[in-house]
């Protein structure tokens, strides 16, 4: 009886909030925050509806949607299909981007320095400790690399960027997979921990001999020296929109339940090896139908009209065929009436 009256009260409260047309509420990944904020701004001008997105990190976003305090959660580390089913969640990709290695070396300009996956893993494993190591010299015959200790910088907080980065290192280095693993926070063999994409960018910028990994937008904003990479096909690539797109084109979204796709280490001559998608989590049977519908209309609008804005900020919009797949999934899985 008591439970029943609580449920009634909750239903009433939900009913009230429907009438007041509150802002769409979401929380999670920091990586897509700049583009979500830009979309939200334009969406408000277009439709009058607002979005309240808190960029608190992927792990925290998953926590919030599980606690049902937000209408959608956002994460760069996708949930496995069985975890989605356990909580009755639907997952879909919203936008894609690239992760770049950034270095602080005197006289080295963006694009001068190149590195491949196994060498990057060896640096983060603490096996390559000096910039004039033969492995780095072999990759950069044209550079005069100094005899300077390498300061590897990583995220100290739980992060979707770390998940994608460690996933890539695990793909190219069996030792990494076995000793360190793949997760949003791992047991780092060494180096410096910094908080957030900004924290890593700042620490790299102020520490001589540092190497770090950040979302491309943060490297660009902070004018950091990014490293070119050798991809799976053995080709040297630069972090450009085309390289990110080439990697993204390989993804087989149609045959991935829960859109579980990690875009690291994709084949193709032009593919950037550390490309990542960022995902939205929503309940299939939402407690507040109206709020859920509002969120879906925002995402629909973003897929339709947000591409240009995404590209301006160096994000890669989802291709049209993937958007179709996502919208079909909405119709099928997410309760809308």
């Amino acid at each position, binding site marked *: 009886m008591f439970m029943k009256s609580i449920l009634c009260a909750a239903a009433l409260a939900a009913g009230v909030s429907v009438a007041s047309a509150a802002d769409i509420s979401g929380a999670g990944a920091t990586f897509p925050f700049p583009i979500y904020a830009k979309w939200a701004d334009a969406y408000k001008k277009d439709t009058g509806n607002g979005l309240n997105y808190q960029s608190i990190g992927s792990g925290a976003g998953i926590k919030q949607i599980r606690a049902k305090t937000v209408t959608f959660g956002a994460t760069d580390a996708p949930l496995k299909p069985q975890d989605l089913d356990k909580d009755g969640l639907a997952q879909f990709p919203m936008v894609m981007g690239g992760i770049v290695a950034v270095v602080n070396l005197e006289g080295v300009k963006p694009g001068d320095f190149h590195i491949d996956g196994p060498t990057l893993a060896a640096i983060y494993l603490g096996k390559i400790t000096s910039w004039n190591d033969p492995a780095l010299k072999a990759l950069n015959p044209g550079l005069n690399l100094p005899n300077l200790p390498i*300061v590897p910088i990583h995220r100290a907080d739980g992060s979707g960027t770390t998940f994608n980065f460690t996933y890539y290192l695990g793909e190219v280095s069996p030792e990494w997979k076995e000793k360190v693993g793949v*997760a949003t926070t791992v047991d780092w063999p060494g180096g410096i921990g910094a908080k957030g994409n900004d924290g890593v960018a700042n620490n790299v910028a*102020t520490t001589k001999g540092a190497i770090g990994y950040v979302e491309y937008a943060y490297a660009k904003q902070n004018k950091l020296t990014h490293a070119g990479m050798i991809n799976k096909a053995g080709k040297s690539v630069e972090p450009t929109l085309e390289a990110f797109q080439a990697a993204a084109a390989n993804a087989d979204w149609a045959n991935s339940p829960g859109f579980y796709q990690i875009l690291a280490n994709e084949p193709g001559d032009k593919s950037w090896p550390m490309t990542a998608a960022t995902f939205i989590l929503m309940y299939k049977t939402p407690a507040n139908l109206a709020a859920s519908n509002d969120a879906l209309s925002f995402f629909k609008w973003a897929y339709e009209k947000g591409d240009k804005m995404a590209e301006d900020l160096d994000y890669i919009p989802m291709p049209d065929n993937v958007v179709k797949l996502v919208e079909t999934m909405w119709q099928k899985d997410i309760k809308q009436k």
Partner: protein
Amino acid sequence: MDRARALSRLKFADSGFRLMTLASALVVLVLLAGVAIALFAGAWPAFHEFGFGFLFSDAWSPPREKFGAATAIYGTLVTSLIAMLIAVPVGLGIAVFLTELCWLPLRRPIGVAIELLAGIPSIIYGIWGVYYFRPVMQSYIQPFLIGTLGNVPVIGFLFQGPPFGYGVLTAGLVLALMILPFITAVSRDVFDTVPTVLKEAAYGVGATTFEVVGNIVLPYTRVGVIGGVMLALGRALGETMAVTFVIGNATKIQTSILAQGTTISAMIANQFADADPGLFTSSLLALGFILFVITFIVLAAARALLASLEMKA
């Protein structure tokens, strides 16, 4: 009749006041017990899973669900120790200078400056530490230490490794700077309470300033001085942001104090927001509980020290 009524009203008001103050005092106890119990309850799954080994294990691997507190406990204790080793003698020295030796017109400005230092928020020390102090450590102080002390037998291992700038020593030095004003401000205030007659009597029989400080001022004020030192130690043990910025946040124990480490509060600040429910969150709460216990032990030890001093006196 009126007098009796007035008296009874006074009595009533007085007992009411007594009850209110008693309740306030009890609230503190209840809160303390509540925090301890809540922390312990949250930490229980981790204690249950890892047992006593939790205290001695330096593992910290969320993907493998292996956690241990040793790295954080070690970092917390070592950074605080470095800070105290530097800040206590220097802080007391400043206080002695201000009360005994300083030219009178300068006492107030220097005193005010120190109180201002004590009021600077810790995040400012953190920013200063990471942007200005850390590069100096990386380029000058650490290479110097590695080149000199690093080659000394026995203690050399403490000063080896590459100079990254970040590390346990850097954090300890920033902490020393942060707690210095606490020690100075408190000891200066208590040094001022020493009766002039006592000091003049000592000077009168030919004591030097050093002897006066050692034999009159410090014994007279030891309770206050120890109180100030403990307050500073408490701050050092629990300091979060300034330490997080410069310690390097590495989850492995390394013997060199130039190497990176972490502290209990830095660990919680970095990882709590997005820790998965279950063992990860529980292990972080267990760290919090351990910090609670460490602080409690420090305070209890200070009390015991004071009590034994009183006995002797």
